[in-house]
């Protein structure tokens, strides 16, 4: 079999970016959560909030640390596997990605150290300020990344001269038509991730009757947040979909599994899309619902995959099912949010073990939903790397062979498995240590070090938890 460097590079990028994405999506939401706990502590003086904050700061530190490492690999992928793309877009992507790096370094140098290690060394107000700055900084970081991605989805403000894009308007290029929706959708996703993880971990502690007072408070706050966030995300997601319909109709056609442009299109609950035969098998559908969702009109027109030539269609099966996983989990999140409201009277949210165990399981749902969502938007853009302008094939590194790509794909999988399984194993140990360990004198006698995310956690990686 001939090894195709294009497919292998796409798999490699997907692997690396998926692995990377789960860390920042968590840290962004968690930074705000910590800032929230610190604010509550500052305002009420109740030490419970500090207890919670101390624990979640340790979690934050470890996740942030892993995310930074996987991010370094990301930044080299563009050059190694997609050099034509990098070269063509460097005038825009270069500064934008660099600004992300600058934001991260500035944060780390100026505020992260104070947040992680400065609690007893600076006034409480300064510590709170650092927490808020770290939270804002994570958003500024994601601003740059999402701006770069949005440009690839809905390019604006650029001019192509001799194979290289030149920025004609920085504001147009930074704020392309899909940027606002994407940013809001991702911001909410980050908050949802943090809220579900806090809810799930607190639920687990409540089941075990550990630090009940603090963990009940955290669970309660997380559920209130979920009640607002989960339904809001559905609405924002809907608007994001409408924006995609306007700018990337083929992606929407793939999401809906709709081959022929038509009106009154049904919503497919289940189908096996068949790329070759250009049809679906085993459809289970609700009449006219897709038209209604997409156009807010029962007889609205929905674009079809056949509107574009075969070679300009994304892989329908992947996009179709990723979309269903994302939406399905989103609806499940809404159900849990409402369930939490129903159980709230008489404090049944702390007693129903079914609900608490459900929340434990739900703590991984936002990660799956986020990855599925990114697969929808990235795979759905295929074959385009820059929508309508440059394909994956055109952006690929010309000198790259299948063998080279396979070598590094396997290599990265091995390295990531070894390295990040240790990271995640360690994170689970920090979870197991709980609030008790985070608030106890340090078990590891470490030397004094400034501003190292990992040194904020004082749990041993081996031995008994």
């Amino acid at each position: 079999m001939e090894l195709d460097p294009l497919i292998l590079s796409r798999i490699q990028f997907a692997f690396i970016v998926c692995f990377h994405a789960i860390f920042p999506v968590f840290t962004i939401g968690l930074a705000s959560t910590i800032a929230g706990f610190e604010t509550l502590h500052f305002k009420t003086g109740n030490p419970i909030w500090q207890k919670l904050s101390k624990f979640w700061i340790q979690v934050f530190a470890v996740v942030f640390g892993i995310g930074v490492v996987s991010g370094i690999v990301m930044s080299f992928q563009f050059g190694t596997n997609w050099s034509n793309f990098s070269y063509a877009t460097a005038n825009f992507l270069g500064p934008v990605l660099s600004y992300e790096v600058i934001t991260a370094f500035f944060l780390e140098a100026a505020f992260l150290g104070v947040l992680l290690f400065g609690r007893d060394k600076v006034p409480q107000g300064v510590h709170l300020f650092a927490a808020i700055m770290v939270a804002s900084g994570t958003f500024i970081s994601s601003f740059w990344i999402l701006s770069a991605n949005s440009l690839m989805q809905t390019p604006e403000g650029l001019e192509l001269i001799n194979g290289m894009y030149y920025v004609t308007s920085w504001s147009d290029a930074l704020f392309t038509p899909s940027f606002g929706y994407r940013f809001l959708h991702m911001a909410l996703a980050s908050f949802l991730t943090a809220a579900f993880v806090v809810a799930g971990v607190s639920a687990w502690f409540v089941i075990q009757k550990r630090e009940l007072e603090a963990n009940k408070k955290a669970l309660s706050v997380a559920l209130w947040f979920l009640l607002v966030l989960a339904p809001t995300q559905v609405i924002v997601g809907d608007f994001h979909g409408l924006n995609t319909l306007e700018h990337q109709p083929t992606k929407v056609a793939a999401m809906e599994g709709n081959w022929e442009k038509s009106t009154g299109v049904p919503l497919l609950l289940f189908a096996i899309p068949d790329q070759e035969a250009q049809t679906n098998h085993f459809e289970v559908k609700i009449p006219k619902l897709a038209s209604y969702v997409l156009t807010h009109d029962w007889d609205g027109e929905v674009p079809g995959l056949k509107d574009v030539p075969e070679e300009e269609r994304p892989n329908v099966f992947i996009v179709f099912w990723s979309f269903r996983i994302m939406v399905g989990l989103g609806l499940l999140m809404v159900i849990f949010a409402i369930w939490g409201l129903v159980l709230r009277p008489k404090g049944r949210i702390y007693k129903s073990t079914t609900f608490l165990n459900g929340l434990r399981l739900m703590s991984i749902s936002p990660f799956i939903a986020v990855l599925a969502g990114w697969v929808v938007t990235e795979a759905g853009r295929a074959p385009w790397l820059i929508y309508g302008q440059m394909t994956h094939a055109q952006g690929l590194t010309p000198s790259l062979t299948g063998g080279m790509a396979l070598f590094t794909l396997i290599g990265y999988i091995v390295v990531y498995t070894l390295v990040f399984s240790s990271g995640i194993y360690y994170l689970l140990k920090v979870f197991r240590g709980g609030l008790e360990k985070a608030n106890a004198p340090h078990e590891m006698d470490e030397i004094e070090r400034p501003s190292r995310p990992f040194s904020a956690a004082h749990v041993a990686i081996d031995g008994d938890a």
Partner: protein
Amino acid sequence: MEQQFDLTVIWAGIIGFGLMMYVLMDGFDLGQGILFPFAPDEKARDTMMNSIAPVWDGNETWLVLGGAGLLAAFPLVYSIFLPALYIGVFLLLSGLIFRGVAFEFRFKAKTSKYLWSWSFSVGSIVAAFAQGAVVGAYIQGFETEGFVYSGGALDWLTPFTVITGLGLVAGYSLLGSTWLIMKTEGALQDWAYKITPRLLAGLLTVFTIVCIYTPFIDANVKTRWFDNISVIWILPALTLYCSYIVLRSVKKRQDGMPFVASMGIFLFSYLGLLVSKWPYIVPPNFTIYDAASAYNSQLFLLLGFLFVIPIILTYTTWTYWVFRGKVKQGGYH
């Protein structure tokens, strides 16, 4: 345009400065990893690690900043070097990841400590070798067609680049051993005094090979150095002088000077290399002007760099200041 000329030179200066900072700073901490298996005992290894614990990741900041800046200011370098060095880049990144994670977890490990020690060491050696090979590949030049790399996957791996790779491994361990002379006492320091001259000899051997070989493969280099004997000959002279200082100060058992002089060796050989190749940034075909990005992109990012570089420098200086002096067993206190 006159304006464009200015920014490109400024960016060349920034990237050149960042790279130098990286080599000097990450050099001595990669050096700890290279020396790790040869250290006298486990207690010495703990002390070695403690000596760089406060600063090592700040040192790598410069690599990331340089890489990002390169894409923005000299995209052609980014889009030719990375494909040409594809396998090497993978090795470099894997090495850096392994040693970084091993570094963090070794502090938190009890029974699995030896595993993290090995990861730290192997990762450091691989990363140092890959960086040295990159330097060699840069000297060799790249096969290009239009603005695209057209060579093979392993063109970068030649006897010459293996030598430069080993040379940098020796060089980084020299920085590492002289750092230990400066930062430690007792048996570990004695050991560092003992190995420093051998590491220096290794580095100088490679230095000599590179100096002799380079003019033969690059006519520009030959012209620059030999057609009119000029002031640039001061650079190799200073490199040799610094080597002499290293030896002399080791003999006198001074503890700061060997490190300073080792940095001098790196600085002057680096400047010598730049002078040889200037203004070629992707030899043999492209100069910094060919590789530069658009004026407004360079300007847009320059503002950010002018903001962040002083902050990083201040923060770095502060960190080194806080952790000045000898490292005691069990860390700085």
